């Protein structure tokens, strides 16, 4: 019974101490702050606790902040950067050796194919433009027109000669046919 009371008393003290710390830091809601002030008025022990806490706070605030020596700051930053890099490479290794290993090869292959396909597709129009930009002189056009006329004339003449040859071959046969 006595032990239980002590336990309850200790628990109560810790709870009130917690409230006092919060009260001192203005962290309590108004209702709880008012309740703490009532305890302080009713119990001198808590008032002393508050005074002690205020004293400790003021003493802590009076301490000067220690300045970090440059070589320590340099070493700390260097180690921090090294740890960050190690962490990144570790995660990267885990990515490629872990579950994603089955993905990156197909992705890389697909990207390669896309690059090759793009190169092929875009190279053809460039080639075409180069051809189109070739200048053709009027002399070349006139010469080509003469060649076209010569070719068509040759085809036409050969066609006429061929027809004439067939007629020549058939003429004796036609002559021998009985006339109606």
């Amino acid at each position, binding site marked *: 019974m006595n032990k239980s009371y002590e336990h309850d008393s200790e628990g109560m003290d810790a709870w009130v101490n917690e409230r006092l710390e919060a009260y001192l830091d203005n962290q309590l809601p108004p209702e709880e702050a008012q309740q703490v002030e009532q305890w302080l008025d009713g119990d001198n022990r808590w008032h002393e606790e508050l005074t002690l806490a205020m004293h400790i706070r003021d003493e802590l605030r009076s301490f000067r902040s220690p300045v970090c020596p440059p070589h320590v700051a340099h070493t700390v930053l260097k180690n921090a950067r090294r740890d960050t890099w190690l962490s990144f490479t570790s995660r990267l290794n885990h990515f490629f050796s872990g579950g994603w290993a089955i993905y990156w090869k197909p992705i890389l292959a697909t990207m390669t194919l896309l690059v090759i396909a793009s190169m*092929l597709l875009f190279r053809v129009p460039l080639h075409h433009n180069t051809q189109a930009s070739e200048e*053709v002189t009027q002399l070349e056009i006139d010469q080509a027109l003469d060649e076209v*006329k010569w070719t068509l*004339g*040759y085809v036409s003449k050969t066609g006429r000669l061929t027809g004439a*040859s*067939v007629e020549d071959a058939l003429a004796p046969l036609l002559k021998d046919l009985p006339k109606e």
Partner: protein
Amino acid sequence: MSIGMLRYITRSRLAFILFLISLYPIRLGAQSLQGDPSGYVDFSEFEERFGTEASLEVDIRGQMLQLVAEASREEDPELAELLDRLEAIQVRGFPMLRSQFRRMESHSRALADQLENEGWNTVVKLRDYGQYVDVYAKENESSIEGLMMMVVDTELGETVLINIVGSMQAEELGRIGNRFNIAPLEEVMGDQ
């Protein structure tokens, strides 16, 4: 894109790259002659058979053919309209000795076999003394897509190969060609 598809692409990436590369010459060929249409005949093989370079060589296609059509439009609209429908005109002329006539006969037979295997129809096959004329046509439902003519003439000592590619009618070729007085081949060869 699903992971399964990505895996499939990875496995077959070599085949896919080869497929893409194989498309390249087709696209390039398309710049010059629309991917070799059905009426086109590759003359390089015949030049090998003749064993000599052509003395007369005409290759008019693509942009040059369009320019020629425009150049003739005012003077001869019918010719320009025909040229608009053509894709290429190519001619090879070879001087020939009388002693080579027999060899030309075997070339002619080989040419006929090759063209007929490729779906060409024999329109004319004339065997006269001292003269061979073979005319082949690649036809569709309404017009000729290509005309191939081989003329071997021992009297004139010449062999001429002509390939006209594009949509045309036989009668318009004859009608338009009639207007042009052609010089003998040896004169044309002399101009080259």
